């Protein structure tokens, strides 16, 4: 599948990063094509979040290179990542607790009036529009996000990532706190964004979800890449085996 699709949207080549001797990510290479969803799987502490944080600018890789549409890029902070149209939903959500949903959604990219003042009314109106699509039951527009439930907070973080027309979307366990209805809406959203040609990295512990939503799955263990498979060519048991055993099953290892 990966052949004759032109240049990948993202290439993570030989990425390594360690924290005080622990190799959190150890020479990992993964790529991502436009209109593709690549799942990242692995046990807790496998290095999934750390890997994508090197792409989102939260961490600086120790070695390796990142290419966007074939061009080598330096991503030193989250603002650099955004300049490449990379948006991220962090596992920790990264919301400022005392600010309301709209202020969080637009934090760092406030809508301002001609005189340079923040336009709260416009930001709230936009927030209402996007939230209506993601979580129609959401009402707490004037509360600080610390007063929201875990799922509501997650909806705000998702809204922020999809609002700004990302080309590359990183979702680190985006539905972990969501109810079934909201999870379904996120699944539909992912499919819609995929149709629009976005490339999406999706970290998710739910193998069935990964099989349903992703084109390929990359499995990590102890910082290393176990392998990348096309989800259509494997069973959920195969993927589980890769996560647990840390190697590709016999019949897949070509």
């Amino acid at each position, binding site marked *: 599948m990966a052949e004759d699709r032109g240049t990948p949207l993202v290439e993570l080549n030989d990425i390594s990063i360690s924290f005080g001797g622990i190799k959190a990510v150890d020479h990992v290479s993964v790529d991502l094509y436009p209109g593709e969803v690549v799942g990242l799987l692995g046990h807790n502490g496998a290095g999934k979040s750390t890997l994508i944080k090197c792409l989102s600018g939260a961490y600086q890789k120790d070695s390796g290179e990142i290419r966007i549409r074939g061009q080598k890029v330096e991503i030193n902070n989250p603002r650099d990542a955004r300049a490449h149209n990379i948006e*991220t939903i962090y596992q920790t959500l990264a919301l400022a607790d005392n600010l309301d949903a709209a202020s*969080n959604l637009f934090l760092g990219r406030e809508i301002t009036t001609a005189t340079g003042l923040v336009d709260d009314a416009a930001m709230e109106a936009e927030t209402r529009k996007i939230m209506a699509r993601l979580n129609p039951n959401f009402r707490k527009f004037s509360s600080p996000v610390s007063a929201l439930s875990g799922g509501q907070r997650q909806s705000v973080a998702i809204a922020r990532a999809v609002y700004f027309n990302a080309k590359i979307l990183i979702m680190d366990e985006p539905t972990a706190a969501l109810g079934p209805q909201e999870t379904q809406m996120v699944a539909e959203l992912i499919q819609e964004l995929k149709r629009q040609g976005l490339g999406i990295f999706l970290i998710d512990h739910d193998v069935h979800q990964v099989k349903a939503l992703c084109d390929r799955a990359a499995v990590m263990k102890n910082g290393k890449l176990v392998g990348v498979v096309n989800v259509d060519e494997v069973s959920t048991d195969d993927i589980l085996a890769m996560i647990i055993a840390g190697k590709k099953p016999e019949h897949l290892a070509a």
Partner: protein
Amino acid sequence: MSETTQSSDSYESAANRAERVAEFEQHNRGFVGRLQHILHLNPSFVPLIVLLGSILMFGLLLGSKFFSPFALTLILQQVQIVGIVAAAQSLVILTAGIDLSVGAIMVFSSVVMGQFTFRYGLPPTIAIACGLAVGTAIGALNGWLVARVKLPPFIVTLGMWQIVLATNFLYSANETIRSQDIEAQAPLLQLFGAKFDVGGAVLTVGVVFMLILVFVLAYVLKHTAWGRHVYAVGDDPEAAELSGVNVKRTLIQVYALAGLICAFAGWALIGRIGSVSPTSGQLANIESITAVVIGGISLFGGRGSILGTLFGALIVGVFTLGLRLMGADAQWTYLLIGLLIIAAVAVDQWIRKVSG
């Protein structure tokens, strides 16, 4: 209701208003919960009530001796220096920092303004510009140490306090520049002390400056992206950084601006006391923190309003003058201020629970 929110704009806002009311009832917050919520949204509400209450109380106790334009504006004059410094302190505390060097920066800036005029014979405008630049530079250095070297603000500014104060004494050779000399040769240095009468009320340039400063800062913090970033940085620096806020730059700007404001306080200090004295203003750091805390700004950062700080400074001023007019021992003032500080932090903790 979800369908209605997607229809026309006016209909939408009407529906939302209804929702908001419903929200209150649903959560069955009761009066106490509602109060908590209101205070969370309007953090300067408590100090405003306390301020008005204390003015009313002393007004009733002392009558026109206290409740006169003259006495009330005297309070403004007495708090102007602390008020200006506390505005600087508020900015820093909103970022979850603290600035113990504010008083030292203020005094040293005033000494620079005075010495540059009298020792080197520079025109007062240049000397004042130099004083303002020195204050800004010291503040920026604080900010750089906090943001880039990642040292705790308490330690950085504790050290800077000592360094700047010692520099101040060494440089000035402990020498005071007399009021008469300033008046004769460089009256511009005393500009903030210029008084004007408005129907019995006596205002100074320093008082007007303090009020304008607080209102401008309150407006900027509330209505500009930069202001929102200041709050976000104090609230959760990591989340702010991941959201694309340049946290380090924001911090350095905040400390530098605090330094600049303290230098203005130094200029105002010359107007207030007439002379340039390297030993003045020693309590400014503690008094400014007191005003900020009583004003309801959270020491944990990210919450509070600079208007609250103004109210906090005025509360201290009202108690100080009121008790003095009543002939009470000055220690009663400190005792009451101490109680207010602890009460203010207790209220802050209680308000925090609304979001807990």
